[in-house]
């Protein structure tokens, strides 16, 4: 159905206030001027401009393909893009040009979206900081925001801006940074344990993890096949709904997508929340949760209560086992999924050629970083015949218990769960790297990863700025395939909190009205 809402950039494009080419060029210029963020691994300038040109032709004929026609987007570098390098931020796939587009990429292109480039990530999506890829770490744009700088000035010593920057979170940090810094209007990430919602929270953008099986994974280079989903990053909830509408639905190429027909929906403007039941899971008051975020969470709960919604404390008793369970299942699938990287058919191949085995070993040692290799070793250990029952099967059973926790709570009448997304605001890079990837992942995934266990939809909505001037987000978790309800509630919340726009010098410098107003931050 035609959207009733006035689509800002889309209508600007429609009305000729700005052309797709101009829009594309501005985004490309902004990418260049924000290069220090290291959000992009590959910028596909030529093809993007060509796509913009095609889009322009359609607009001039009055025949745009849809709301996404001419809209610049970015895609995490673990999605296959035909003709454009796909690296997964790994030496193993440096220079790898895929011959096919991931289904979600194809769908966006079919809608006329303009693919600006591939964004940076933790190597093979393993990590929670976007710091462990071969192209270096991604910098959170908020590190350079006026809001953050103002708060840092109050610190006693003047440190070099260079060493003060904060991380984006991960592993879809590049996509989150790209959206946050206005270089694109929407970006694809992936979410296995929180990899879309975590950086969304740290970068102050909307990060949607859809229900498992709703969106095709064909062409998404897998981390954990039974938990991965493509994630959607945008600057507002309405935009996320539009992108979801263009991506969801059965894909014959992915046997884990549901067969039911998906109907794209319009998000109603919810005014009456009195029929809503919000659950507050007590286990999400996790050790290490910052006082700030705890307070914000409480405030949000009150917001719903005061607006007439039913807000109750609920319990998800197996939450505390989810990290360990995730560790076993994730590493086991990683060990399996990475077995194909042997240097024979594609990707890096070592010069070592004394024997096939030695070539495999050298190729994989050279191609994978420590994080990947560590997970492969762990995973293989858990899959050994003598360990399988005690680790893998046990973890599957615990996974079932975790999923059942959610089912019970939803069956008791709760519609949506409200939780924090992260334990704190974004850490400075220098702090973050003091602990290893595994430790950080275990810490940071705790609030997001149960949703992946249960396959449930979840969304981060930016809620407020922290004392340090950095974004804090809150998470809503919904019932399976009830994205419409989830996003409706998220949109209502977004409207209430009025999260501030990032005050970024580079963005301001790019003159046009399109970027300066709060509403124009979105395309829908």
């Amino acid at each position: 159905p035609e959207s009733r809402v006035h689509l800002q950039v889309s209508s600007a494009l429609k009305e000729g206030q700005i052309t797709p080419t101009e829009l594309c060029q501005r985004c490309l210029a902004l990418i260049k001027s924000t290069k220090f963020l290291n959000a992009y691994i590959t910028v596909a300038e030529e093809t993007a401009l060509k796509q913009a040109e095609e889009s322009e032709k359609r607009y001039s004929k009055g025949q745009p393909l849809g709301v996404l026609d001419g809209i610049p987007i970015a895609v995490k570098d673990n999605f296959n893009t035909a003709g454009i390098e796909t690296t997964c931020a790994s030496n193993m796939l440096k220079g790898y040009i895929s011959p096919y587009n991931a289904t979600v990429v194809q769908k966006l292109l079919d809608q006329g979206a303009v693919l600006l480039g591939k964004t940076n990530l933790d190597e093979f999506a393993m990590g929670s900081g976007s710091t462990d890829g071969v192209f270096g770490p991604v910098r959170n744009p908020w590190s350079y925001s006026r809001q953050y700088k103002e708060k840092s000035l109050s610190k006693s010593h003047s440190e070099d801006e260079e060493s003060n920057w904060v991380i984006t979170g991960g592993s879809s940090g590049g996509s989150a940074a790209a959206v946050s810094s206005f270089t694109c209007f929407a970006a694809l990430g992936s979410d296995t344990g929180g990899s879309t919602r975590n950086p969304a929270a740290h970068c102050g953008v909307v990060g949607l993890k859809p229900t498992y099986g709703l969106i095709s994974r064909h062409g998404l280079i897998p981390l954990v096949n039974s938990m991965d989903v493509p994630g959607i990053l945008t600057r507002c909830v309405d935009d996320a709904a539009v992108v979801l509408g263009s991506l969801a639905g059965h894909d014959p190429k992915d046997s884990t997508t549901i067969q039911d027909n998906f109907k794209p929906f319009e998000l109603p403007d919810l005014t009456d929340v009195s029929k809503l039941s919000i659950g507050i899971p007590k286990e999400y008051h996790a050790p290490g949760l910052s006082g700030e975020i705890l307070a914000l969470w409480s405030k949000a709960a009150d917001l719903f209560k005061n607006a007439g919604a039913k807000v109750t404390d609920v319990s998800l008793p197996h939450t505390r086992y989810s990290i360990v369970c995730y560790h076993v299942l994730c590493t086991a699938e990683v060990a399996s999924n990475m077995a194909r990287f042997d240097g024979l058919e594609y990707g890096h191949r070592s010069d070592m050629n004394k024997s096939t085995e030695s070539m495999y070993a050298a190729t994989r040692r050279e191609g994978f970083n420590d994080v990947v290799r560590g997970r492969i070793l762990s995973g293989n250990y858990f899959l050994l015949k003598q360990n399988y029952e005690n680790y893998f099967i046990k973890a599957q059973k615990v996974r079932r218990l975790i999923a059942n926790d959610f089912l019970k709570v939803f069956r008791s009448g709760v519609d949506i769960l409200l939780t924090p997304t992260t334990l704190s605001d974004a850490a400075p890079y220098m702090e973050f790297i003091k602990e290893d990837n595994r430790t950080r992942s275990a810490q940071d995934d705790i609030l997001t990863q149960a949703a992946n266990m249960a396959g449930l939809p979840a969304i981060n909505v930016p809620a407020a700025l922290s004392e340090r001037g950095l974004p804090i987000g809150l998470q809503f978790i919904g019932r399976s395939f009830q994205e419409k309800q989830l996003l409706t509630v998220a949109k209502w919340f977004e409207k209430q909190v009025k999260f501030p726009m990032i005050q970024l010098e580079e963005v301001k410098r790019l003159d046009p009205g399109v970027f300066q107003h709060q509403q124009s931050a979105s395309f829908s």
Partner: protein
Amino acid sequence: LAPWVPVVGLEIHAQISSNSKLFSGSQVQFAAPPNSLVSFFDASLPGTLPVLNRRCVEAAVMTGLALNCSINKKCLFDRKHYFYADLPAGYQITQQRVPIAVNGNLSYSLCIGNKMSQMVTRTVRIKQIQLEQDSGKSLHDDTRSQTLVDLNRAGVGLMEVVMEPDMCCGEEAAAAVRELQLILQTLGSSQAVMAEGQLRVDANVSVHHPGEPYGVRTEVKNINSIRYLAKAVDYEIQRQIEELENGGTILNETRAFDSKLGCTVPMRDKEGKQDYRFMPEPNLPPLILYDAKSLPANMNHQQVVNIDWIHERLPDLPSVKRAKLVEQYGILPEHSFILLNEDGLTEFFENVVRQTQMMPRKVIGWILNDLLSYLKQHSLTVKESPVSSSLLADLLNLLEKKEISAAAAKQVLAELWKGEGKTPLEIVKEKKLELIQDLKELEQICQAVIDGHENEVIMMVLG
């Protein structure tokens, strides 16, 4: 010396006859240019996912039903991990936990006795049938120290048929495999031609004394024909017996059959035993099969496999065909056995019967004793026979009408083999082989013979 009981089990891989592969849309074709039938999924390009081929499922269900198996209404797929150049993903998708069919049996016949005239029926239990991917092919080029990998075969659908150790010798193993081959070809689920790699057999062999537990078994691979299967199994049984009688032990190892030397040799040793780290295949939901009872009313017909529907459409299996031939034509079971055993022979026989007045149980003699032995002598298949069914029928008609004798008929047949295009009648006329019916003429001939051999006659009269 105490007697030895040999025990033989078989693992048979039959390539499914289908247009495309088990989990991808690339074509299945023998002897295509290297790497010309490889989809992105077959090459294990990152991000590709398996999509189950319905025809392969149907082939496995058909085969399971023909082997009297229980078809599992829910079965699962697993990953079996190992590194090898012809296994691009580093794992094979197979069915380890719950395969598609279990607990069946196969009956086969053997000729035993002095003149191989007695036919006995044996049964071997079928443990299970599982669907799995075939691997690619590697060709080792030792001169250039390289391995050439062809992925055309990678991902082709296989049915692995596991036969319990109910067989006792090479002959039984060969007969069981032959029967399985005929069944698969009748069903069309596999063309099962061993020479084209469509049917591969590994044998598990052990020996023990009666009343004692089973001995250590070895696995014998690299068997390229049914004949070699019998040889390999018998050799291995002998080898184990000799080894044990000399006080040695049998290692639980894999051995390769060397067809030139006619023996089994240990295969290149892999350090320790392989742990395949089996894991459920996360990209394939459980496979649900339906029957008439469980089929939901408004299910999309394209999306389901109905076991009962398949059962109703199974063709006559070889055992049924043989029984029908015996009943219809009054031939012996041994005859029908040989008829089905030779590709095209049944058809040939039935064509001859249709075109002649001779009784089928007389025709069968000509088919099995004359035609078949000639074909075997010259290593020809029935299809390549220079004597067509019509020609043979014509000849047999002459014999039936008593226009020639049986001996003459054999002479004519010998001429027909030359394939010079002459009809039986032409040959008879040419060689003056007509039977003389006229009594007077016969008397004259006999008298002439007697007259020409006076001495011999006198000797005979004197006694």
